[in-house]
């Protein structure tokens, strides 16, 4: 983490991960969020926190309010009520821009340009993130290293595999070392098992270095492997929260997170 992030959050524990120390300012705090599309409430008084160095998995069936929550967290939607703080700074009002500067969003879609090379894609995003010209080339190189795509830097994105494109999609969020919170919306959709494992490993590495991660996925194994805590939402409300082990233990004796999810919501995750 750089000075900007250090200033914004409490110092992580030795070894990088703060693991959710009680004194730390949360990297993300959602407080009593409410959002409705017309008369349909998509997010209903939702509150949760993600601490520095913690990966938080947000689970829910289709239509549960996951994507709307992500959009609220990233400032793409303004909540009808409640608020979002990134490292103690509200997304709304004067500090909104600074707060947004601390989060990086990895969308479900491939927000890339197929006819540009991997390096050109990252260069574009580096410009959009306002990374200084003097440090831009270094930022692109480092991001490619983080997702192990250095050797393909000059290949067009359209000529790389789906897994590589997913890694590039992640690399965009890693251009700026000032980011404190990584928000990933189903980042492994359509990726083979090997590439999924590589992505999870990369994201786990970032978490270990002190970055907070908010993660949604349809893959339970990913969530159990990566996330320190999970929150299960249904009809826009948080119905269960805790570490994967706690959640399973506190349930009705079901074998794993997937069975528990089914028991809690009465629905399969892919519905």
């Amino acid at each position: 983490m750089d000075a900007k992030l250090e200033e914004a959050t409490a110092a992580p524990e030795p070894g990088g991960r703060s693991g959710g120390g009680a004194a730390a300012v949360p990297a993300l705090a959602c407080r009593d969020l409410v959002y409705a599309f017309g008369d349909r409430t998509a997010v209903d008084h939702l509150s949760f926190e993600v601490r520095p160095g913690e990966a938080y998995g947000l689970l829910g069936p289709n239509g549960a309010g996951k994507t709307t929550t992500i959009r609220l967290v990233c400032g793409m939607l303004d909540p009808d009520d409640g608020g979002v703080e990134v490292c103690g700074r509200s997304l709304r009002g004067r500090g909104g821009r600074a707060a947004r500067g601390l989060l990086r969003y990895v969308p479900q879609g491939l927000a890339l340009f197929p006819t540009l090379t991997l390096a050109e894609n990252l260069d574009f995003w580096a410009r959009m993130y306002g990374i200084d010209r003097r440090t831009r080339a270094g930022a692109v190189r480092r991001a490619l290293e983080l997702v192990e795509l250095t050797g393909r830097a000059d290949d067009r994105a359209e000529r790389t595999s789906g897994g590589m494109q997913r890694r590039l999609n992640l690399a965009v969020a890693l251009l700026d070392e000032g980011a404190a919170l990584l928000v990933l919306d189903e980042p492994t959709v359509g990726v083979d098992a090997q590439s999924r494992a590589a992505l999870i490993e990369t994201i786990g590495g970032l978490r270990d270095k002190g970055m907070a991660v908010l993660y949604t996925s349809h893959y339970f194994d990913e969530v159990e492997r990566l996330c320190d805590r999970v929150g299960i939402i249904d009809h826009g409300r948080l119905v269960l929260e805790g570490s994967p082990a706690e959640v399973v233990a506190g349930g009705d004796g079901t074998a794993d997170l997937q069975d528990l999810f089914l028991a809690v919501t009465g629905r399969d995750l892919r519905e």
Partner: protein
Amino acid sequence: MSRWAGPLLATLRLDLRRWRRQRLAALTALVAPAAVAVIVTGALGGEPRVDTTWAVVDEDGGPAASAFFDRALTHPAVAEVATARRLDRDAAVRALDGNEVSAAIVLPSGLSEALAAGDAPAIEVMAPRTDSVGTDVARLVVDQFRVRAWAESTAVGAGAEPPDDETWPLTVAVRSATGRDLDAAAHYGPAIGMFFVLLALGFAIHNHVADRESDVLDRLTTAGVPAWTVVAGRVLAAVTVGGLSLAVTAATMGVVFGRSWGPPIPVVALVLAVLVCYAGMAAVLAAVLRTSAQAQVATAAVGFVLALGSGSLGPPGTERPPVAVLVPTTYALDAFAELGVAGAGIGAVAGYVVLLVLVGLGLLAVSAPLARTMR
């Protein structure tokens, strides 16, 4: 770099790079405008063209009717633009209904006697449902024939020498809505150029919508990038490419055929005004369209309205539809027609330039708040 200049320039650079990487980029922006300019200019030769057919009904059968056939219809100025078919009244009406002729001229019974008596009797010109240039020319020829025939009969009656045919004041000129001579090449040239500008803007709109669908715009929003800068950068890239196509069209017509659009400074001012105007329209569309399907329908519809509504696809002098007054392309074409006149300067098109720029700036201003909700 300021908060907006960086993203705007980055988007401009991005789109120009994406355009360059398209396989058909050079073909659509450079080769096609040049090729179409060569074909159209070569085919039309820059001359005003009217090619029409009239039905002529002879109910008189006397010397006046013979004079109409032998002298009026064979006059070089008339023969160049019109062909006459001698029909009876019923056949003439059917030909009109079937759009086979642009007018039916009826030489009434008793025409010769009336002229001999020093009268100037009416000669009926029947028009189809929709008038065309051919109908107007028929009326012109008939009016001039009546005046001429009456003058001759009066002169003969007074013992004076009738005027000779060489001085018969019969001319056919196709003019613009503002009364200027219309040059077909100067009409189609800018119309072709503007079509390619629209094509480039259409691509930009499709790119923008595709970026929305692939979450690029969402990601830009979370990066704190002002939405309008992305739209502006994108439109700027498109008008750069479209402007290049327009320049290629003008240069091809100038270099290959010597057909100038007019003096350089007013032409450049007018081209820039057209680009600003179209940029405004594209910015609004890019800001409001959400899906590729919407973009496809909307860009095609707008293209058709701009082309057909202004009459730019029709021959010069074609009567424009009422909607033309609302279509900016109409004013652009009128302005280019003004510049086709010898001696026309910036003053001839200043009003058009101001109007097009104001429309463009107004639309750009409207697009900014619309783009704010670009996700």
